[in-house]
C-alpha cells in the first residue's frame, strides 16, 4: 500500500471505444468482450514501478455518453494524467477527439499529461483511422500517442506506464507542484523523501471539484 507517489488518471473518450476494457486489462489483466455500460464514473487502481519507485495509479473511468459529462467533468480536476481513447475502427470517435481535448483543457489543470490511445488495434482489418493520423493528431496537440488493444493487451501496460513516466518526469523537472493535490499527485510514504503536505488530504481537492 505504500507508494512514493499516487497519480490520478482519468480515462475519457466516446462511448464504446473501450475505456473500461483498457482499465480492466490494466488492473486485472483480463479482457471482457462485453463490458457493461459505464454509468457515471468507475474506479480502478494499480501499483507500478517507475525509476524503482512504487507508484500507485488511481484511475477514474468515465462514461462516454455526453449526457454524463456534467459528472465526468468534475473528475478532470485533480487528475495528473488523462487517457484519451478512440476506436481505430470507428472514425467518428477519432473525429470527436478535439472536443474531448477541449473539455479536458477546460476542466483539467494545464499540466495534465494526456495520452492518446487508438484502441482496438487488433481489429486492423476494420481500421478506419490510420496510425499516422493518430500520430499527427497527437503531435499537433502535444499528446503522447499509442495504439493499443485492450483485447490482446498490446500496449496497455505501456500506455499507462508511459503516461506515468511522463508525469514522473514532470515532477523530477519541477514542472509539477506535488504539494498541490489538485494536480492529481499525492506523495506517499513509501520510498521517497518526507513530502511536504503528504497528508491524507485527498478530499480537499475532490470535494472542491464536485461543485
Amino acid at each position: 500500500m505504500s507508494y512514493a507517489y499516487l497519480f490520478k488518471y482519468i480515462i475519457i473518450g466516446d462511448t464504446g471505444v473501450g475505456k473500461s476494457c483498457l482499465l480492466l486489462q490494466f488492473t486485472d489483466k483480463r479482457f471482457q468482450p462485453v463490458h457493461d455500460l459505464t454509468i457515471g464514473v468507475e474506479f480502478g487502481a494499480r501499483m507500478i514501478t517507475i525509476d524503482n519507485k512504487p507508484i500507485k495509479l488511481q484511475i477514474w473511468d468515465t462514461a462516454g455518453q455526453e449526457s454524463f459529462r456534467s459528472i465526468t467533468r468534475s473528475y478532470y480536476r485533480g487528475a495528473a494524467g488523462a487517457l484519451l481513447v478512440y476506436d481505430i475502427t470507428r472514425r467518428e470517435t477519432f473525429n470527436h477527439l478535439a472536443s474531448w481535448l477541449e473539455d479536458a483543457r477546460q476542466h483539467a489543470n494545464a499540466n495534465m499529461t494526456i495520452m492518446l490511445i487508438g484502441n482496438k488495434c487488433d481489429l486492423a482489418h476494420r481500421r478506419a483511422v490510420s496510425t499516422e493520423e493518430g500520430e499527427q493528431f497527437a503531435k499537433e496537440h502535444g499528446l503522447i500517442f499509442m495504439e493499443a488493444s485492450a483485447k490482446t493487451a498490446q500496449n496497455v501496460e505501456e500506455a499507462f506506464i508511459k503516461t506515468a513516466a511522463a508525469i514522473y518526469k514532470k515532477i523530477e523537472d519541477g514542472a509539477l507542484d506535488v504539494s498541490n493535490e489538485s494536480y492529481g499527485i499525492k506523495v506517499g510514504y513509501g520510498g521517497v523523501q518526507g513530502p511536504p503536505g503528504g497528508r491524507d488530504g485527498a478530499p480537499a481537492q475532490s470535494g472542491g471539484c464536485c461543485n
Partner: protein
Amino acid sequence: MSSGGVEKPWRCGKASSVNLQRMSSIVRDISDPCLSQSPRKVSRMLKPEKWRASFDSDGKVLAFHKALRLIILGGVDPSIRPEVWEFLLGCYALDSTAEFRRQLRKARRDRYSSLIRQCQMMNSSVGTGSLAYVVGSKVLDIRTSSKDDHGREGKTESRQTSIDSTSRLDNFQHLENDCTDMSQSRACQREGFIDSDDLVSVRDNDVGAACDSSTLPASSTPYTSGSQEVGREVNGSKSGIQTYFDFPPLPVTNLFEKNEEDREEYNEADSKFSTHDTFQTGDDRMHSFRITNNTDIVMEQTDFPSNGVLSPTSSEIEMSPANACGTVPQPQKSASKTQIVSSLKISSIPESPLRSATSSREVNVSEERVSEWLWTLHRIVVDVVRTDSHLEFYEDSRNLARMSDILAVYAWVDPATGYCQGMSDLLSPFVVLFEDNADAFWCFEMLLRRMRENFQMEGPTGVMNQLQVLWHILEVTDREMFAHLSRIGAESLHFAFRMLLVLFRRELSFNDSLRMWEMMWAADFDESLQDNLEENCLDLLVIHDLGEFEADAALEAINNGSDNLEIAAQSKHGKGESISENGGVKSASTRPFCGLTKGFWSRNDRVPICSSPVSSTTKGGDRLSVFCVAAILIINRHKVIRETHSFDEMIKIFNDNMLKINVRRCIRMAIKLRKKYFYKLVKSKSAARDSDYCDASSPTS
C-alpha cells in the same frame, strides 16, 4: 453478497426462445428459496392467492393497500410479478375492470405495433428480432467474439425491401463497407457516412431530401429512391453550418455544447485552409484530420462538392431552417422546437409521419427526426449488447433485439428524451418479465414517467437534484454520516449516482433489484398516495376510454397542439431553470403517483411540460429511492466511516459493491428515514431557506 452467482439461475433453457411463462416459473423457483436470506420471511410477500383475492368479480382491485403492505414487506411473488407491476407502475387504474384492462392492453399493443411499423419504415430491422445494424459493423466492435454478426449484417442488407428508407439506409451501409474495405482516398466523401458522422451526413442527406421534396412536387416522399438520389447528390453541398444549427439536439453535436465556439472554430479552420480547394483535394485525410469537431464534419460536406449545386443549395438552406421552425440559428432553441414539433406530429398523425409531404415544414421536421432517430438507434444497439450481458437470457440476440426495439420506439415517441445510457438497465427487467414487447414497453414508459428527467439531454439533472436532496436528508437525519461525508469531501455524493440512475440495478443482483423496485414502488404508492388517488384513477379511466377512440385523441392532440408546442418549447431548452419555473405552474395538473395524465399521445406532448418539472422539483426528493441510498449509507455506517478516508474510496466502495444491501432491511430503513425526514422538516419550519426542499416536502405534508 449482492450480485455474484445469483444470476446463475437465469440460465433457463438457453433462452433460445422467449418463453416467459417458463421464464417466470423458473424465476419463481429460484428466487424464493435461494435469494431470500431469511427463509421464514418468505411468506411475507404478495402471494398469488392474496393477489387474486384482492379483485372483485369485475376484476377491480379492492384491497390494493393490503397488497401494497405485503409488497413493501417482501416484494411480489415472481409468478405474478408482471401483472402486479402494471398496477404498481400505474398502467391501470385500480378500479378498472378486467374487461377494460383487456381492451386497454389490446389498444396498447395495437399502438405499439403501429409504432413498430413506423420505426420499421426508417430501419427495416426494427421489430424483426434482429438487431438493427444501423451502421453495419459498428456493433461488431463491441461484441466481437460471439454472435453471428456478419450473418445478421448481411441479412440487414439483403432485406432491402421496397421500403424507401431502408434502401437509403443500406446505402449507408454500402458506403460504409466500402469505406472500411478500401483505402481511404475517398474517405472524406464517405467519411460522413461512417458512424456518428453519418449522423451528420444522414442529416444532411435528409435535409437534402427534405428540401428536394419541398421544392419538388409534393408527391416525392423523402424516401423515394428518386429523392434519395437527389439527396445524395446534393448531400455534400448541403449547408453544413445552417443545417448544423438545425440539428443541435443531436447527441453528437450536443456533445460539444459550446456551439458558438464551434462556430468560431469553424471560421478559424476555414480561414486556416482558406479555400474550399483544400477540402476538395484528394487529401481528405488531411482534411478530416484537421477536423476539430463535429461542426467540421458538417462543414466538410458543405465545402466539398459545392460547385454545381451551390446556389440552389443556399437558397434551400435559407428556407429550410425557417421552414422547420422559424428559428434563429440558436441551436438549443431550435432543437427543442423541432423535437416538440415532431412529437406533436407523430401524435397527430401517427400513421404517416414520414409521408406527410403536404407542407415542406412537416417534411423537414420529420426528416430531421428520422435522421436523429437513426443515430439514436445506432447508439441503442451499441448499448443494448452491453446491458445485463451476464444474463443468459440476453445471449439470445432476439432478446437483445427486443430491448433495442423498445428503446427505439421510446426514442421515437419521446424525442425530447430520446435515448440515454442507463435506460437499457431500466428496461431490461421488463423485457425479461413480459412476453409481449408492447407490455414491456408500456411498463417501461410508465417507469420513465417518474424518471424521465434523469435522462434529459443536458445531463442527468434529475439525479443531480436527487443527490442534493439526499445531502439534505443526511444532514437532517444523520449528522454523523453527514459530518463524515463532509470531512472526506464527498458532498457531491456522486458515488450514489449510479444507484439512482438505474435504480440499484448495478448494485444488486437481477432478482434483488426487481424486488427492490417493487418494494420501492409500493412504498411510494403507499406513502405518497394522495387521498384522491381514486379520483385520479377514475380520471384515468375516462381518459383511457378516450384512448380507445384514437381518432378523437388525435384530434384533441391536434387541437391542443399549438399550445403545447409553445409551452413545451419554452420549457424544453431552458433545462434547469425553466423546468422549475414551469414546475409550479403545471404540477397541479398532474397526478404524481399514478403518473397518468391524458391519453397517451397527448401525454407525450405534455411530457416536457408536466412530468419533468413535477418530478424534478417536487417528486424527486420524496421518492423512496433517495431514502434507500441514505439507508444503505446508514446501514453500512461502520464500514463507511471506518474505511473511507476520501471521496475516491467512497466511490470505490460503492462501485465495487462492497456494501451490504439487504433489500428488505434497506426498504424498511428507507421508509423510516423518510418519515423522520419529513417529520423533522415539518417540525423545523426552516424550510423557507431552501425552496427546493420545501417543495420536496409538500406532497406528503
